[in-house]
């Protein structure tokens, strides 16, 4: 998340209304999950990557790195689907003999593994689209529009902000330690890490106290009420997104399913 964050705030689709992007991503994902058509799934993957790289201007290598994680997981997952075993090896495209059994893969096995893979990957790209184009701040705004309880909104607001403060604090402690040989061996590292953790909590405690003081001095009375920069819905963008989703459905209906 910290890594993605650098790109999210500067993505060129940042100022689309977050609601538009959220719904586009969710509806496309639902289409991917409901309609089982590998061509359409491939199209979704292409569209999402195309939008991210072409329109949002997320560098390809960054996207690649982020995609790699689900990719590896998915591949490992579908391998078990592709593999099957029987006791004569007939009908298998390739197989190895293990004792009395043949472990291998059939055409059907491969096909269904491929389908599951594409379906899952297309859904994942929808989420990645969301993660790269909608910063957390804007996400919180949409949740607010959707009438999510204010307690949850407040928590998200504070947690999101303080993740960065904590990470920064932890990083400072780490630098201070390692500059004094704190991580110069296994034993030292374990010790230093323990110290880092313990001290982080102390610092966090004081941070929250100071934060409380500063909130109070600005008139805090038990509820964090703020205004949001109000993005505007754009007919053009909505049309754009709706067209893509409709086109996907047309592709799904027009192309045969194997």
């Amino acid at each position, binding site marked *: 998340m910290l890594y993605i964050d650098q790109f999210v705030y500067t993505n060129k689709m940042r100022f689309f209304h977050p609601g538009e992007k959220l719904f586009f991503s969710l509806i496309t994902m639902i289409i991917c999950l409901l309609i089982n058509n590998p061509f359409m799934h491939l199209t979704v993957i292409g569209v999402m990557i195309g939008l991210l790289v072409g329109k949002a201007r997320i560098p390809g290598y960054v996207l690649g790195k982020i995609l790699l994680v689900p990719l590896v997981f998915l591949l490992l997952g579908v391998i078990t689907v592709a593999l099957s075993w029987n006791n004569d090896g007939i009908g298998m495209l390739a197989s190895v003999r293990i004792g009395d059994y043949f472990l291998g893969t059939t055409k059907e096995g491969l096909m269904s593994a491929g389908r599951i893979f594409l379906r899952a990957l297309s859904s994942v790209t929808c989420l990645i689209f969301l993660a790269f184009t909608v910063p957390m*701040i804007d996400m919180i705004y949409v949740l607010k529009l959707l009438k999510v309880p204010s307690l949850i909104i407040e928590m998200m607001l504070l947690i999101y902000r303080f993740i960065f403060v904590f990470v920064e604090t932890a990083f400072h402690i780490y630098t201070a330690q390692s500059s004094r040989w704190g991580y110069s061996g296994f034993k030292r590292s374990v010790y230093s890490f323990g110290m880092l953790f313990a001290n982080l909590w102390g610092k966090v405690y004081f941070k929250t106290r*100071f934060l409380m*003081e500063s909130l109070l*001095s*600005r008139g805090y009375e038990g509820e964090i009420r*703020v205004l*949001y920069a109000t993005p505007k819905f754009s007919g053009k963008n909505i049309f754009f997104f709706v067209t893509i989703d409709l086109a996907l459905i047309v592709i799904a209906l027009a192309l045969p399913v194997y």
Partner: protein
Amino acid sequence: MTEYILEAYNLEFSYLDGTKALKGLNIRIEKGKKIALVGNNGAGKTTLFLHFNGVHRPNKGEIRFKGEVINYYRKQMKELRKSVGIVFQDPDNQLFSASVYQDVSFGPVNMGWPEKVVREKIEQALRKTNTWSIKDKPTHFLSHGQKKRVAIAGILAMEPEVIILDEPTAGLDPIGTAQMMTLLDEFNQNGATVILSSHDLDQVYAWADIVFVINRGKIIAEGSPEEIFRNEEIMQQANLIKPWALDIFDYLTAKGIIKRTGITPRNRRELKILLD
């Protein structure tokens, strides 16, 4: 008659762990002035500031705002916190939202103003502090100086009559410091009473109308910058070092190189003019 906007009498305050931070402190802040509070680390500056808008409540003594004793009732508290704004030393402790815009909106929304007014105030505050262009950036990508300016915008948007800044120039580069002082001058010219604490005595000397010296939880001196910084006893007691412009000027007049004219230079430029 001088009008005092904030007064504190016999203020005593201990933290929960027993640290006595204020020990019978007296101070009177004149309305509309530029005021500096100087003193060592741990002298009690931050603690005093937190008393000025009711975040801390004294164990003993009283605080007055516009002559009225603070009673810590809700209604008065709200008024006080609207009128006296504190910019905290570490902006990371003040900025609670990752969104600049949201953070700045917090104070004015708490004031209960209508949304349209709040949005106007936010824009004005962001423009005045030169942060309008970064309003869509998340706070964790801002530089220290930018964070400080956003923190100030958050206070400015509430349009306080008194703006208190706890070490506003700590951690800023020279240009940032100069810009900060200009900004504070602007607030003052627009009618606000500005109070700051600082360890940069050269800046304080150049900027302040009135200087207070705090030491071990007490105000030990008050006066014009020249008076205070020429008072060797006080300077020694509070471990302060005379601002260089004043020091050199006094040295040069003592040597007879510059004639006393009644003008005391406050900064580099003014000293040079005298030397020309």
